[in-house]
């Protein structure tokens, strides 16, 4: 079975900006984080992606994480300072 690419929106929690991202079902959450952080020229740091109230696991494929066409994910800083 051929899985077609699909599009989602990713929101930058720090600025409110959004970007559309074209993905395949086997892309991972880690890849979404890296692509979004690179697009927004984020400094190297720690981030999570959430869908609704749920933080998505980095290694999960988007299909396993329940990410579907037109979903909105949010890139949130996970600060490490103390």
């Amino acid at each position, binding site marked *: 079975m051929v899985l077609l690419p699909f599009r989602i929106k990713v929101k930058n929690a720090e600025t409110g900006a959004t970007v559309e991202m074209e993905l395949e079902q086997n892309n991972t959450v880690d890849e979404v*984080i890296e692509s979004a952080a690179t697009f927004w020229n984020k400094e190297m740091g720690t981030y999570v992606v959430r869908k609704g109230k749920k933080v998505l696991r*980095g290694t999960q494929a988007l299909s396993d994480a329940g990410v579907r066409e037109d979903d909105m994910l949010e890139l949130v800083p996970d600060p490490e300072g103390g």
Partner: protein
Amino acid sequence: MEEIIRPAEVDVDRFDRPRRVGWLDLDAVFRAKLLMVGAGALGNEVGKNLVLSGFRDITIVDMDRVAMSNLSRCMFFEKGDAEGSILKAEALRDGMNSLADKGAVKAVACSIEECSTDLFEKSTAVLGCLDNIIARMYTNAQSYHAGKPYIDGGMEGFAGRVMIVRPPGGACLQCGMNRSHAKMANLRFSCTGSETTLYEPRLASEITTTSLLASVMVREIIKHVSGRNDLMLSNAFFYDGRTNRAEEFEVPLNPECPVHLQ
């Protein structure tokens, strides 16, 4: 014989006001043994809240020394501490003891990885006020395996996060980590030939976010020792100080997380 009361008598009791919070178990607070890892900005604020709340038995672990740049965020550090390069754990211990009702704050000046795991076993709960992922992962894992609740705070600029870990069930701190955390952890220990250099990023930090996160952390510990886990945050609390918005997220347990595989 009838009990005699006098005007303003209630003001003699240092803890009269918290005693008025119905669900708060002050005796449990007095008895609790806390392990606090990290004595930086967050550690100072958490420490202040702990001793004013009535916690008496607290062990602070930190290996660093006070620097001048700490003074804008650390109420217990003074210029002389920075000039004398005093150990943070000891400066914080002295400050907390001076503020405490019955001071029994102890300082251990080493990294948490060098400490005996007995510290975890003997604690009622563990507070993470750390500034790096490696120490967080270690503290999270040791707390989890000792079956002790772990409350971890992290911040940068106006962004903050508090994670609540309550073994034996539910997700731990590491369950919520991904490749961006692994990269930052690796960056800390970058090997160049035979040498390992420690990379310490200088992160943006300011006191109001620190103060708010410390309040959340100590409030959660008070709930736990008071037996009110039902009131506790279930998982992760994210805070954006620029908009003053806070939200609770769910971090699901990761069955591949090394902490849960052991």
